[in-house]
């Protein structure tokens, strides 16, 4: 039994004008919706994890409809790694910063000594910072999972 990739290599699957145009139009709105889900997590269902997955899915859609090279032109592997590490660092760094400023670990009201927003305001704003960190980390990891599994780790042609 031949691999599925070898059997479909000659068929030029995915090189469809309709799919490419539809994805090209849809991707900005998908990314806007992902940002909305992250930022609006205080008031509506959603949050960092879901918004990050939606942001990553927009790049996955680009890589599916065009080529993996095309999605790597828009966000290179280096930028992707920096964003993922930065997201995890924002989360843990905020928690450690709370402990350094005299509060408990992950107690955002201690950051009031840094910028005076009031303890309750800081608890609301700390949740926002953490959602952004989770969103960045999840987006980067979803995209890099798809790149690595889809192209067998070589990052050249892909799915």
């Amino acid at each position, binding site marked *: 039994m031949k691999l599925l990739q070898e059997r479909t290599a000659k068929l030029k699957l995915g090189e469809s004008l309709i799919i490419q145009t539809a994805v090209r139009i849809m991707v900005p709105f998908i990314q806007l919706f992902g940002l909305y889900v992250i930022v609006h*997590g*205080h*008031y*509506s*269902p959603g*949050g960092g*994890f879901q918004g990050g997955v939606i942001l990553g899915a927009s790049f996955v859609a680009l890589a599916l409809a065009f080529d993996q090279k095309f999605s790597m032109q828009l966000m290179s592997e280096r930028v992707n790694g920096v964003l*993922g590490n930065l*997201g*995890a660092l924002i*989360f*843990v760094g905020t*928690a450690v910063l709370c402990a350094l400023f005299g509060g408990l670990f*992950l107690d*955002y009201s201690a950051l009031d000594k840094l910028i005076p927003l009031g303890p*309750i*305001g800081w*608890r*609301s704003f*700390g*949740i926002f910072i*953490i*959602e952004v*960190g*989770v969103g960045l*980390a*999840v987006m*980067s*990891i979803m995209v*890099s*999972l798809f790149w*690595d*599994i889809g192209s*067998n*780790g*070589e*990052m*050249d042609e892909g799915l």
Partner: protein
Amino acid sequence: MKALAFVATLVTGAILLYGTMDFPAWGDPQAPAATHLSNYYIENAVAETHVPNLVTAVLGDYRGYDTMFETVVIYCAGLAVVSVLRRKKT
């Protein structure tokens, strides 16, 4: 062998279904989970954090450790996949 596995699956499922008979009914206000902590969150979460969505308040503030280690687990999964699969082109 397949029949034996089927019987084992059926017995396990029956035991699990028997275990669910002790659960409180769906939406029961007298359930143990709804009598201790839920009342505190519903009454105080908006005043303490100014977040109207209680799920976000619980996930981000009261249960911050849970969310932090969830992120760390996903980060470790990404690191493992990249370090196992990624290779330079020969």
